[in-house]
């Protein structure tokens, strides 16, 4: 399968608001991220709050400029494009936002919400836009007869369905979902996830699925990338991430999920401390101040050297620890 999205060394820095008597600084929200996504695949992006997930999403849909690095969609470079150059790609990459209450204009009817992307991209004739919008409403499980209602007349789950339908109206190849279910009730979450899965098969869409709920990612994504402080620390197929995580941070994340089937023989490795500030990331491995495996690496290399990239089959991760030298987590 061909690569749909290739991100290399992506960096997004924000100038920090100037503080009195302090030198100007930047927030390194995203700092050297590599991601690959194939057509029709779904990639989970997980990480703590503030690790830069939303920033990556906003950069991919052109709401945020990349500071450095490259984003290739289907072989075409996106970074450095001006608004006009980026425009055709905006149709191919759509986004579903976290808050279904905020992402739909309260003063537009559902029908006009759904036809808007087609209008912007001048797809179809007005009459056919309406028909297509109604079809999609049906496809996401809503009655097309509600097309003239306003968003506030729907529940959260229904609104998120409308947002999903809106993203699909222009036949995107990639849909970025930034925590699409975290604002929803648990019972509704499952329905929306099922819908996403169903639509993926039907329309052959790739998802970049952002979440900090590992169970959700596990149920939807084929591959998972783990973000820590603006960097990807591990990328691997779903089963490897969940069954045999390699990076100590991933291990800690997985272990933190309560799982009744896991034997008590593997006590959860709990992380201590707060994630450090992205303004001044620690030298060496960014995870070393909180890493439980740091003591296993000689010469305190973790604090001094960038960890090497290691690969094993489809999995890649960055860690000083030799594979196999740690007790299996």
């Amino acid at each position: 399968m061909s690569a749909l999205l290739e991100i290399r060394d992506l960096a997004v820095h924000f100038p920090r608001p100037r503080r009195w008597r302090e030198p100007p600084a930047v927030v390194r929200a995203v700092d050297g991220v590599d991601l690959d996504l194939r057509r029709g695949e779904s990639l989970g992006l997980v990480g703590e709050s503030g690790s830069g997930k939303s920033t990556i999403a906003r950069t991919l849909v052109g709401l945020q400029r990349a500071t450095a690095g490259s984003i290739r969609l289907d072989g075409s470079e996106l970074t450095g494009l001006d608004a006009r150059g980026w425009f055709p790609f905006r149709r191919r990459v759509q986004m579903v936002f976290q808050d279904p209450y905020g992402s739909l204009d309260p003063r537009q009817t559902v029908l006009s919400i759904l036809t808007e992307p087609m209008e912007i991209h001048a797809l179809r004739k007005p009459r056919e836009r309406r028909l297509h919008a109604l079809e999609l409403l049906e496809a996401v499980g809503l009655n097309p007869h509600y097309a003239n209602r306003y968003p506030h007349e729907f529940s959260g789950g229904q609104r998120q369905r409308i947002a999903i339908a809106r993203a699909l109206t222009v036949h995107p190849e990639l849909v970025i979902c930034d925590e699409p279910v975290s604002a929803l009730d648990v019972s509704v979450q499952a329905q929306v996830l099922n819908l996403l899965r169903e639509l993926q098969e039907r329309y052959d869409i790739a998802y970049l699925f952002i979440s900090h709920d590992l169970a959700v990612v596990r149920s939807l994504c084929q591959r998972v990338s783990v973000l820590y402080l603006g960097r990807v620390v591990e990328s691997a197929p779903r089963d490897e991430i969940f069954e045999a995580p390699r990076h100590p941070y991933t291990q800690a994340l997985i272990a933190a999920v309560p799982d009744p089937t896991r034997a008590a023989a593997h006590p959860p490795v709990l992380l201590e401390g707060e994630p450090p500030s992205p303004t001044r990331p620690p030298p060496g491995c960014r995870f070393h101040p909180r890493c439980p495996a740091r003591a296993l690496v000689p010469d305190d290399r973790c604090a001094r050297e960038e960890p090497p990239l290691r690969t094993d089959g489809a999995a890649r991760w960055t860690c000083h620890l030799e594979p196999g030298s740690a007790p299996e987590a």
Partner: protein
Amino acid sequence: MITDQREMRSGEDRLDPAQVLADARRIRGAGHWRRARARLRESRTARWSQRFLAVAVLLSLLTPLLPLPSPTALDLRALPRPPVGPWVQIGGNGFRREYWELSAVDSALVDVREALFGRWQTGPYLGTDSKGRDLLSRILWGSRTSLLVALAATACSLLIGVTYGAFAGLIGGRTDRLMMRLVDVLYSLPFVFLVIFVLALLDAWLDEAGGASRELVFYALVGAVTWLTMARVVRGQVLALKNAEFVQAARAMGASTSHIVFRHLVPNLLSVVIVYLTLTIPSILLVEAFLSFLGLGIQPPRVSWGLLAADGVEAINPLHSFWWIVVWPAVAMGSTLLALNLLGDGVRDALDPRGRAADTDRPAPGPGA
């Protein structure tokens, strides 16, 4: 609240797509504007306010056509007459053009009136004031001044205020800060002193140019201050809307700035603008009344509702109760302002799809939101 999808389907478990498509062809789009208009038509208060205001505006525009006694013809011998007959007078003063500067259109209307009614004119339906002038005539002629003031205020609020505020909010950054600083400065000038100052400054020149230009300066000053609040309000709204997620979503889709302005900002701003307009018009009418009362606004022999109020105050004395001199102008002004406010409320509610107590219906964001 969380009733999810399938139950909204009408009965069947899974709709037949062909059926849905057939249905879909019959579903007509009814956009926000059309639905808002329908909601406005449903509101009885708004409908009646609309009618009242339409009649009021029509009357005030067509005043020169009506067979009213002259609003300026004095009759100093008699006491103020209460609102009693005769209901028709023949051979009153007619309309005396020498006391009143008429525009070309009004002059033509008076010609028509004279051709139609000759020397017929109405009796003192609402009584006469302390100088023997017909009150109904004065109220109607005065309404034209007030209408003009309201128009000047509305036009400035909308044209200058909305544009200025929206522009500052959209551009943001240093331009925004500079533009808003200017508004702050203008805001801090006390209006009454400003009027006194400017009129005093221009006095010599105004005497040469005649009374009409003094009024013009007054309208200009009213306009100059009414757009300030509107600019502030609109700018704040635009700033908030600019960062709203649905605007970000439109941007991510590739929407141009003009698309965002007309599709998202205008519909979301409009109700706020209308609310502030319905607040501005009454307050500016009161400002006119106040300044005319102080002798800084409209000058006799012209009439305005403010001057009528001033006359009313003079008429209050413990010996004779000339109630009509106070009551009728107050009724005219009060009912107009009430109708304006009710209409404003109606329009605002019609524009807000959530209707009245709307904001309570948004459930608290779930965990992780």
